[in-house]
């Protein structure tokens, strides 16, 4: 189904291992993680807390350094990829600067990367339209709702030309209705921009609805228990969640999560 997979993978992990040294002894956060993500894929990482899904995303972003195995991003080491500004990162909290307007917040990475001011204006306009926030450029973050703030932070991650978008539970703090709406918008955005997306979540419906590939993880040590290539079509209205295919994938994810927990409880 995925013809892109024949080309070089965008993210590739082999036997990836990460152990944190803490005062209470070493913590095995990731163990033998093998994963290959092709260009334009939407990959969700799902699992209970402590399963290493966020840690894995942070490894891809070079915010953590693995202690073993290999990891490449765009064929480079994660740190080289970071220096080349290969990805945009969206955190669980919007993290907008309260002293900057929405437009100025989106310009932050552009200023740091040295874009001209005309180019900055043009890009702000483009990404605000992508996340459906036209007309809010002059507002300060506190004047926006939580969902709008998170959209602004996605716009900020899209403003420069990274072809990978890493999202760490970006909608985790939002209510169900806002989350549904943002999920729909995110799919539209993904279809338009053709970016590769890595998405951490602990919601099964969210993972199944969004992804072309679902990575089920389990804790102690953090590892991958199942990788599901979604049979769902690329075009996904919200009511696809009532179809048998959707329910079947969701069931498999739930089984994977249960299996991961089995040797633990």
């Amino acid at each position, binding site marked *: 189904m995925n013809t892109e997979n024949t080309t070089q993978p965008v993210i590739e992990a082999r036997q990836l291992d990460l152990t944190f040294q803490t005062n209470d002894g070493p913590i095995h956060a990731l163990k033998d993680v093998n994963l290959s993500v092709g260009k334009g894929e939407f990959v969700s990482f799902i699992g209970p807390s402590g399963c290493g899904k966020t840690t894995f995303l942070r490894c891809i972003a070079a915010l953590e350094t693995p202690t073993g195995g290999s990891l490449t991003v765009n064929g480079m080491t994660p740190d080289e990829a970071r220096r080349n500004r290969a990805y*945009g*990162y969206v955190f669980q909290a919007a993290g907008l600067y309260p002293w900057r307007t929405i437009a100025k917040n989106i310009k932050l990475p552009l200023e*740091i990367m040295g874009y001209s001011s005309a180019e900055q204006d043009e890009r702000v306009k483009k990404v605000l339209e992508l996340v459906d926030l036209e007309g809010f450029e002059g507002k300060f973050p506190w004047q926006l709702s939580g969902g709008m703030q998170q959209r602004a932070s996605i716009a900020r991650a899209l403003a420069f030309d990274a072809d990978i978008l890493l999202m760490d539970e970006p909608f985790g703090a939002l209510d169900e209705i806002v989350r549904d709406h943002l999920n729909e918008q995110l799919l539209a955005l993904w279809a338009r921009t053709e970016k590769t997306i890595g998405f951490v979540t602990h919601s099964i419906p969210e993972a199944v609805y969004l992804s072309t590939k679902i990575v089920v993880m389990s804790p102690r040590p953090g590892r991958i228990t199942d990788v599901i290539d979604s049979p769902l079509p690329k075009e996904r209205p919200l009511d696809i969640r009532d179809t048998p295919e959707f329910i079947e994938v969701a069931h498999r994810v739930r089984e994977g999560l249960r299996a991961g927990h089995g040797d633990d409880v």
Partner: protein
Amino acid sequence: MKQIVAVLTVLAAIVIVWYAACIPMNIKGVLTEQERAGAEVQPPSAKDRRDMDEIGLALNNAFAIPATWEQERPRLPAPHQVAIEMWETTVQKKITSKRSLIYHGWVTLSATMLGFVIGTGLGILLAVGIVHSRVMDLSVMPWAIVSQTIPIIALAPMIIVVLYSVGVQGIIPKAIISAYLSFFPVVVGMVKGLRSPDAMQLDLLRTYNASRSQGFWKLRLPASMPYLFTSLKIGVAASLVGAIVGELPTGAVAGLGARLLAGSYYGQTVQIWSALFAAAILAACLVGLLGLIERTVLKRMGMAQ
């Protein structure tokens, strides 16, 4: 409206307590004066009066109570005496006069401002160093704390003597004492402010591959602004104390500190109290002005609503 009523109530209470306190404080002196003027005083002998408590004396000689608020050199001057003295030495004196409180206030204020600018600049520089260098964090911070445990009244004469011996005098020594007191709150506040961005904010800049200086100018410095203004308000009040203390040991001829000192030499309590109030009003104005600047700046930055 409610606030004004509350403030006026507190003010009225203070004034009443103050007037009441004048009676026992001044009654002995008043009775001695009255006796000399030929009035009947109970008990008549000064020796007996010395052993009596002041409240009993006041009750025995109720006729003398109004005079406790009108003495030439009271132990505790009444509020209106201080107010009149302040009026006479500000509005009714030319500001070039050596008896003008505005003139003395200006002398102190100029040293305060110079000291405040030096102290704030030094404080910010030290804070930037402490935040960016672990060595400075470990080496400078303890000294900054120790520096504030030395009583300034003990240190001030040394600073003045040492600077005088190398030919520095006038406003500079006062400003240095003033800076010595004001840099500390700025260091503490700015260190906290510059460290206020959380791990996520720092990670975000890392994903942009931002340099340290970009992180400083775009994130740490703006984030520290609310902390800076809080420190500045404490710092400016400390600066004023420093400038006044700096005027005491030199026997300076001008400044609010000199005014306090001269007043105590000649037993001019009214003059001391009016200098004290002038200092308090000056401090209130400086803090108020900084508050105004704070609101304007934070509002323009979008950090205040």
